[in-house]
């Protein structure tokens, strides 16, 4: 029953666009053994075919992984299963019988439970209220609450899912919020549990705990579908795995018979050449410093410490990578250096200008100091969706003398300048009058890079440069960043993609809860070790090893 990987992993040339999914997982026996079965699911958004003729079968009581790049169609598929979208064609079978799922209620009735990437919790409610919402048996709250409390206790004991039932969700740590979501599903008698990128916001310890829970659920016969782009998780916990690429299922495999590198190849559709951009010759020791951060701290308006005692330097002609699990202060650091948020303690000297709590900067001032910023969230910060490309191409430079004449914006000049940027950075379509929102993610990102790099910055702050960007554009973006480095620019690169940081950065600092917990050289960095550092577990691990 085992088929070969027809061309999907072929080293030479791109694979054919449409291949029949290679199937190496045992198809089981009767269809009744499948908890869930998809037949020929297609979904189109406008001209984009988000899902094309997707087949999937998951055996009852197994953990099935679905991997794919951003935009491969994973979320669309799951949204169809949970009734957010209706498929244009195809069938869904639960326990062998066809079902039609039009909304969440149908999905719940079919025994499907879903843990969304962004939790669906009412923050002002307690865990108990969140769990029973929509599943209250009685019109009176007190009776429903008593029932729910008993049932929650039972579930918590059964699956080691301890939560503080009466605590407000807003006061819970992320891991416990996620457990609340799982409890919600179980409380509704879910037999199929779908988790969408569940570890993105978790520390490795919390992730381990999650996986223990998932194994316990599997042991009780719950079927689990895990959507992720983290291959290690797939290898760790799943029984079978499917690979989505550009809306199509390209493989169904038994996890034990595949490898991370095979999955990675299937995901991207070609051999990944892990290109290293590191400098051949190290920078001379007396190279000028572009960014010097000394004892920097930020306490937010709620009194929570976001950055603590950060000190580091970035030399000109150097890329400093900042690694860390999302939400550990990297974004704040970018904001502070870009002048958006003022520091509350310490100071930094950027391109010779000292910024501190007493003498805060602002984004316009930083731009004058030739500090340019490619923001992490391009749709929220980097451009204005409703603006034309030309208008977005001067965002942040709207006051620059070259674009203004006697108080009036020089629109023709701006359009022509935008066209030149688009040509230089291969932004397509080359139409300055097109709305910014009409460009693909990669082209939006290239436009922003073009805007910031073209001004020849002395210091470049880059956040998640390739998030949600198509593969073709990634290389161009990386090359452009390297060009800046070679031109003598000090680059601070924040990314959650470890591969990206490891291949671009000369040095890497690792952030955890607003502090720097480690620094390593880019050339010597090891992914596992970085992972431990990101969880601030490397010292303990080292301690264990020493003991």
């Amino acid at each position: 029953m085992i088929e070969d990987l027809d061309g999907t992993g072929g080293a030479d040339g791109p694979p054919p666009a449409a291949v029949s999914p290679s199937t190496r997982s045992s198809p089981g026996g009767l269809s009744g053994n499948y908890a869930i079965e998809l037949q020929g699911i297609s979904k189109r958004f406008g001209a984009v075919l988000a899902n094309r003729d997707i087949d999937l079968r998951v055996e009852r009581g197994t953990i099935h992984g679905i991997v794919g790049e951003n935009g491969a169609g994973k979320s669309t598929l799951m949204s169809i299963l949970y009734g957010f979208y209706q498929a244009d064609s195809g069938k869904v079978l639960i326990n062998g019988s066809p079902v039609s799922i039009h909304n969440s209620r149908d999905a719940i009735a079919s025994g499907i439970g879903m843990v969304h990437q962004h939790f669906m919790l009412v923050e002002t409610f307690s865990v108990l209220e969140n769990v029973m919402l929509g599943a209250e048996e009685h019109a009176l709250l007190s009776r429903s609450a008593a029932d729910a409390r008993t049932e929650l206790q039972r579930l918590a004991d059964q699956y080691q899912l301890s939560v503080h039932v009466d605590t407000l969700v807003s006061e819970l740590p992320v891991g416990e919020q996620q457990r609340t979501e799982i409890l919600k599903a179980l409380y509704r008698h879910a037999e199929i549990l779908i988790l969408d990128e569940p570890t993105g916001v978790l520390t490795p310890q919390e992730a381990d705990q999650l996986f223990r829970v998932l194994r316990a659920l599997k042991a009780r016969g719950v079927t689990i579908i895990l959507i992720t782009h983290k291959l290690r998780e797939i290898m760790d916990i799943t029984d079978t795995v499917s690979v989505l690429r550009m809306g199509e299922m390209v493989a169904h495999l038994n996890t034990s018979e595949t490898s991370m590198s095979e999955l990675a190849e299937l995901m991207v559709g070609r051999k990944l050449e892990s290109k290293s951009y590191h400098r051949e010759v190290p920078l001379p020791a007396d190279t000028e410093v572009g960014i010097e951060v000394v004892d920097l701290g930020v306490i937010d308006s709620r009194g929570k410490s976001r950055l603590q005692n950060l000190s580091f330097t970035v030399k000109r002609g150097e890329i400093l990578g900042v690694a860390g699990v999302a939400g550990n202060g990297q974004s704040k650091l970018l904001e502070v250096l870009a002048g958006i948020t003022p520091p509350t303690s310490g100071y930094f000297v950027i391109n010779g200008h000292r910024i501190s709590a007493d003498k805060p900067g602002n984004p316009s001032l930083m731009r004058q100091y030739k500090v340019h910023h490619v923001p992490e969230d391009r749709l929220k910060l980097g451009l204005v969706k409703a603006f034309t490309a030309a208008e977005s191409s001067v965002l942040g430079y709207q006051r620059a003398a070259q674009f203004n004449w006697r108080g009036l914006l020089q629109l023709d000049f701006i359009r022509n300048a935008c066209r030149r940027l688009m040509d230089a950075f291969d932004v397509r379509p080359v139409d300055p009058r097109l709305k910014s929102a009409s460009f693909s993610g990669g082209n939006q990102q290239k436009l922003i890079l073009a805007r910031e790099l073209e001004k020849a910055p002395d210091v470049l702050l880059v956040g998640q440069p390739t998030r949600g960007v198509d593969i073709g554009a990634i290389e161009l973006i990386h090359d452009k960043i390297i060009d800046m480095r070679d031109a003598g620019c000090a680059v601070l690169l924040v990314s959650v993609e470890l591969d990206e940081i490891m291949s671009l950065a000369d040095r890497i600092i690792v952030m955890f809860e607003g502090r720097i917990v480690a620094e390593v050289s880019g050339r010597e960095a090891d992914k596992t070790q970085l992972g431990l550092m990101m969880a601030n577990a490397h010292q303990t691990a080292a301690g264990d090893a020493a003991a």
Partner: protein
Amino acid sequence: MSLNTSSIPLPGWIEIGVIPVLNILMALFFAGLIMLAIGVNPLQAVGIMINGAFGYDEAVGYTLYYTTNFIFTGLAVAVAFHASLFNIGGEGQAYIGGLGVGLVFLLLDDFLPAVLLIPIGIMAAGLFGAAWAFIPAWLQAYRGSHIVITTIMFNFIAAAIMVYLLVNVLIKPGQMSPESRLFDESAWLPFMHEFLGWFGVEITRTPLNLSLFFALTCCLFVWIYIWRTRWGYELRTAGHSEDAARYAGIRPRTVIVSAMCLSGALAGFVAVNEIMGVHHRLLLNFTAGYGFTGIAVSLMGRNHPVGIIMASLLFGVLYQGGAELAFEIPKITREMVVAIQGLIILFSGALALMLRPWVVRLYLRFKSVEDVVPA
């Protein structure tokens, strides 16, 4: 197959031409139903209204006089809208703008010549209107209170202040009705019939005065400001995304305050037309709901000066034609226009996208999806 029509772009002429007109037709259709319900033939009513608004030059004068007010308040709402602020306070700002004109003229009209009085009056109207918008704006920007609620409250507070001042302070001594004394003629903005008379053109006496030209100048100014200056660029950026504004070095708070002040000043200019141009004294309720009509005008005109001029003209027709209608048909009152205004706000504003899916489907029958959606 379910079709997500909102993601399908339509050509500009449908988006800004066909759909708004369909929305207005919907509103007028329901207005027609109301007329039928009270036993009036809507077609006859439309005839009377159009004749009443355009049929003779006095009618045209009145129509344009109303139009002037709506341009001011429509622009006021539109400027705030571009900064993503909903200024419901145009009524109060216009009222307080009138106070500004009144105070300045009551103090100065004996001493200064017209060449000084008129610019000072215009500035007073704008400054007082802006000041009345500044407080809610500041509260929203620096204290986080919601501008919709505060501007509503400020309308009532403005009304209370004006009643108090006119009844107790500014009233002309020895008079019963709460009005100030008449200003000196040097403070009067020339009427259109006077102005044209200087060039030998004879038209009928109407309240129409030179503030119409001022209103059109304001349209030009707003268009340049919003789309052709960096301040307008910054205002629109902050309106679309506060985060993007902050990233671009724009202070959203400054934008909130400046956009509202500009908006308030434009609303205050209603007093230029009403107080300086027509009544020549300060009196109660001269704003007569024009501030609220500005919301309908701005929605209909899609926040663009050209659209606002057209929408203002339509409302001018409705007001003047409506007055004529009430005169001709006893069963109908001027409030019919208020009801129509409500319907227009409903269909052009709150239900603006109701017909869009239908239009998209119709459009797609002529074009395939692949033609319409960029890949």
